[in-house]
């Protein structure tokens, strides 16, 4: 665990932040819970210092665990005791409350510094053993980071899957000021919408944010020159550079998972095709060559193939092509939909998340998962304007854009469709979520 190191990096990075806090924070609303969640007790962490802490660590952990659906945190008012360390834990107190797991902790000032140290301990009630525990140190402004780190540990201990609670999201907000003026903002926030920061503002559209695999940079499309062009921006410093200036459409930037290349869509040669730019040599390679629309590139995990949408058979369907292959060596992945768009593989490389319109008559667009081996399709959403799916770095959830009461909002759904939560926004259309890779 390298929290201390990573927190230091966050702290240093924050000094250089060009961005500032967005006025309206998003906050999560659980719209559908799991049928059979795991009971867990998260006891309020004791605080030994003076004053009131700005963040409630145990509440943040409870929210994290509840949002992803696998857990059902015990209400504080039902707790029989409030232990903050191992000696105070009586397993019987928790067994009679039918709890499977228990998290306790305490927060102290670090002597002689402005830092706080957070000690947590995590127990299996049934087996009466301590599963994990450590002391994390950070500044009081990093209590949220510390809480999310603890959530990661709990999640991984129980599910065996790495937690994604310290991940972040990028998204675009469009604020309609008047019929002639819309303000577009590229924002970054914690995965739960908290601590939103503005990375870029423009009166011209901003589209298609994409994380670099290190989480250091974002690529996006901005119309600030009156034409869609691709830019890469350092998230911490705000330093940015224009990457493309080809004629016609420049869109859909996607970093390869190994970070060496940027896939994109250019129509400089007539119609939109997929291209790959090497980020070291700047060499541009054409990947697809078809007179109809090819767009929405995404990478396979090995950075060797690109999944994309093409109209080559008349309607949008999803295809895959290997880098270096002839533009004829294209494998078609979807068949059973009127339109299948915006495909991307889950980390398993077998399940393809995509946007789907079943029939010509019914123009509803929904998020679904296709297993390309069994060809089984699992619909994940049932609203009509769902788009821009983005996969959590641990593959457990998908965030996507939809409409609610006529406004663009971000929803997330677990990969089995069982759990949903929404990040409501104060104003404007929120769209195009991009879930970060693991950031530490």
């Amino acid at each position, binding site marked *: 665990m390298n929290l201390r190191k990573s927190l230091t990096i966050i702290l240093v990075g924050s000094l250089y932040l060009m961005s500032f806090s967005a006025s309206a924070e998003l906050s999560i609303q659980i719209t559908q819970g799991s049928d059979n969640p795991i009971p867990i007790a998260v006891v309020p962490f004791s605080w030994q210092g003076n004053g009131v802490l700005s963040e409630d660590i145990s509440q943040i952990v409870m929210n994290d665990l509840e949002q992803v659906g696998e857990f059902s945190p015990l209400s504080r008012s039902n707790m029989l005791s409030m232990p903050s360390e191992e000696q105070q834990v009586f397993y019987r107190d928790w067994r009679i409350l039918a709890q499977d797991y228990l998290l306790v902790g305490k927060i102290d000032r670090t002597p002689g510094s402005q830092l706080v140290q957070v000690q947590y301990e995590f127990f299996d009630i049934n087996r009466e053993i301590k599963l994990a525990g450590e002391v994390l140190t950070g500044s009081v402004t990093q209590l949220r980071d510390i809480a999310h780190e603890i959530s990661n540990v709990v999640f991984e201990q129980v599910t065996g899957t790495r937690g994604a609670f310290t991940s972040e999201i990028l998204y675009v907000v*469009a604020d*309609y000021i008047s*019929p002639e003026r*819309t303000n577009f903002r590229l924002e970054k926030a914690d995965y739960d919408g908290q601590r939103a920061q503005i990375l870029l503002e423009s009166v011209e*559209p901003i*589209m*298609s944010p994409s994380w670099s695999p290190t989480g250091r940079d974002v690529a996006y499309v901005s*119309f600030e020159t*009156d*034409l*869609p062009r691709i830019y890469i921006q350092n998230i911490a410093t705000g330093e940015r550079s224009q990457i493309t200036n080809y004629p*016609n*459409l420049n*869109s*859909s930037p996607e970093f390869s998972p190994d970070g060496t290349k940027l896939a994109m*869509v250019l*129509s400089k040669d007539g*119609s*939109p095709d997929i291209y790959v730019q090497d980020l070291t040599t700047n060499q541009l390679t054409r990947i697809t060559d078809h007179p109809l*629309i090819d*767009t*929405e590139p995404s990478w396979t995990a090995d950075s060797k193939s690109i999944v994309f*949408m093409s109209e080559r058979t008349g309607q*949008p369907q999803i295809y895959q092509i290997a880098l270096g292959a002839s533009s004829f060596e294209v494998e078609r992945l979807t068949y059973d939909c009127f*339109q299948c*768009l*915006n495909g991307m593989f889950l980390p398993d490389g077998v399940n393809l998340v995509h*946007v789907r*319109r079943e029939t010509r008559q019914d*123009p509803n*667009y929904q998020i679904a998962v296709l297993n390309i081996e069994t060809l089984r399709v699992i619909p994940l959403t049932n609203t009509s*304007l769902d*788009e*821009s799916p983005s996969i959590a770095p641990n593959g457990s959830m998908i965030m996507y854009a939809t*409409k609610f009461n*006529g406004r663009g909002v971000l929803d997330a759904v677990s990969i089995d469709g069982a759990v949903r939560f929404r990040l409501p926004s104060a104003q404007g259309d929120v*769209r*195009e979520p991009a879930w970060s890779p693991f950031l530490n």
Partner: protein
Amino acid sequence: MTKQSIQTIKMGLMAISLFALVACSSTSDTEEGGMGGEGSSGSDSSNNGSARTNAGSTSGQLTQEEIRAENALRQTVFYFDFDIAEFKPADRETLSFHARNLAANSSERIRLEGHADERGTREYNLALGERRANSILNYLIVNGASRSQIEVVSYGEEQPAQAGQSDSAYSRNRRVEVVAR
């Protein structure tokens, strides 16, 4: 994107009654087809209120052909059917006037801004908006305009003309706007 007028103004030729008379008596469907779509209103904000005659017409009297050209050039928004990238056949005559105007005024520059309604993915709509603009671009070139006079840009679904999820909003949003540069 300042919306400059496409044409310089020459006053006194737009007798509205005359316009109405011609529109009513015309057997062509230019105007109706051009305004197209359930949601179109007669007062689209991006239509220019100004126009001028083509070079050569100096007297106050306009021929029927000239009046038709005036009216055609005042139409700067062309609407598209859902899922369709080709402009409506009813707009062909109007676009022919635009092409001839460009051919006759080689210094004139326009921008074709393609748009889509919000259904479908954003990237697909960005590409679709470009195809719509290109369908008009190609027609203008075939009919005499020069490629260098025309810039094409697609905004996809990013700049709707009308907010909301109604069919009428959608039909107003599937459009190509001709903007003078």
